């Protein structure tokens, strides 16, 4: 069965079958990444443009690597080196890129809804690589893949997302995706960082990190976005670390095996201690490897989708 949509804008409303298909397909690409020649000719002749209007290291590299390993032609665009600096509008930039006959667009933008807008002005398959505080679907998919790899399932697992939920696109995509796959999702963080009425999405809110560690199988620890709002939402980084930081003492005190994810980049000593970041509970570097496989799966599934299939 093919994907039900020809774009990946977010995980809200995406059926379980689609997520399952992406995760299952990623298993194949994970195998490709272990080969001596980590490249297949699948998307030969397809042109993909990476439109990054916001800084990114790992997501952009991960997408680019995934595209190259599928033998697609890639173009990289970043605002710092583009004509948007000369005053060209977003729409004109996209229209011009489109005129160069691209098949797929991977977009990151500081404003929520930009990928959705692109679907109206472009014929290409659109993949959201993070739009504002809205969604970051491939990150959530790679998180889910990594959890599934560790436990062999997602259904029934208890996953807690820790940190700045309000400003996190990773959190929102994870909530939608994990819920669709039958996991129990809870959120843990300072009250100032948990959106009001978030429980309506079917998640539990915990304000005590020790309770979160005791009650869950997985902690997905988010990055405190120092560059955005840190100072205003809690008194100090040290205080945040004292109340919500994941430390080995804390893990030992609550005495249970737990799997720790982090989308990176890590602020060592803030949301997670160095000891934990390098310790036996974390699967942070697995996430990075799995990210390439998951993005290859998404590119493959969208890139080989027949025009008649999917909306």
């Amino acid at each position, binding site marked *: 069965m093919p994907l039900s949509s020809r774009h990946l804008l977010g995980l809200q409303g995406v059926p379980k079958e689609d997520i399952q298909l992406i995760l299952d397909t990623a298993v194949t690409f994970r195998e490709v990444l272990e080969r001596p020649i980590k490249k297949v000719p699948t998307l030969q002749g397809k042109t993909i443009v990476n439109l990054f209007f916001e800084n990114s290291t790992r997501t952009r590299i991960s997408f680019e690597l995934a595209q190259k390993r599928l033998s697609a032609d890639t173009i990289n665009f970043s605002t710092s080196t583009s004509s948007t600096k000369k005053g060209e509008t977003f729409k004109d930039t996209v229209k011009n890129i489109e005129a160069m006959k691209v098949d797929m667009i991977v977009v990151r933008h500081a404003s929520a809804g930009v990928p959705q807008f692109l679907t109206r002005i472009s014929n290409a398959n659109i993949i959201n690589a993070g739009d504002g505080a809205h969604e970051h679907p491939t990150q959530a998919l790679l998180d889910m893949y990594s959890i599934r790899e560790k436990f062999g399932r997602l259904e029934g697992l208890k996953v807690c997302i820790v940190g700045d939920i309000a400003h996190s696109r990773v959190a929102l995509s994870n909530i939608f995706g994990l819920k669709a796959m039958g996991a129990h999702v809870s959120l843990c963080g300072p009250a100032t960082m948990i959106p009001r009425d978030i429980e309506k999405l079917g998640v539990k809110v915990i304000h005590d990190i020790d309770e979160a560690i005791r009650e869950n199988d997985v902690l997905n620890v988010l990055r405190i976005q120092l560059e955005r709002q840190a100072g205003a939402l809690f008194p100090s980084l040290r205080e945040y670390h004292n109340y919500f930081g994941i430390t080995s003492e804390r893990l030992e005190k609550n005495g249970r095996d737990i799997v720790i994810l982090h989308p990176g980049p890590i602020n060592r000593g803030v949301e997670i201690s160095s000891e934990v970041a390098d310790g036996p509970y974390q699967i942070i570097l697995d996430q990075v490897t799995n990210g390439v496989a998951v993005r290859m799966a998404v590119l493959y599934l969208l890139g080989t989708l*027949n025009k008649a299939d999917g909306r």
Partner: protein
Amino acid sequence: MNIKAKIIDQEGMNRTLTRLAHEILERNKGTKNLVLIGMRTRGEFISRRLLEKIREIDHSEPPYGVLDITLYRDDFRKRLKQPQVSVTNITFDINEKDVILIDDVLYTGRTVRSALDALMDLGRPSTIQLCVLVDRGHRELPIRADFIGKNIPTSFNEEVKVKMKEIDDEDAVYLIDISKE
């Protein structure tokens, strides 16, 4: 399914596979440098059966793996459905080995071409020898099999359907008329 003829039955398939196993062993003088690689889906089951035969005849067990060639196919843009990929499972080194590549039906040769590309990405074998249960002709590429279970000359209106107990309910090869479908 409009069956025109049953070309191979259960006993026939068993005999054919025994003969193929003997031919492979004879040509390669045993299994010393041999590896078996079955192509999904039915090639996988044929290769497993050949492995059993080789075990019985030669008392040896060459490494055995499964190849999925979906990612190397050149026809997905022509097809209506999105091809579903599954995992290649080759856990041994194929460098400098004599690879026996196994499939059920040899037709245009495009699947085999894809498989050759896939194998080259996994290493550099000494030789690749192709073993098929049925060769139905109509090649579009310069590819031929080294070991053939049965040659079945067909027309374009016919299809060869291999059934195997592992996934179908019987062991048989049918000639199907597709002109009325």
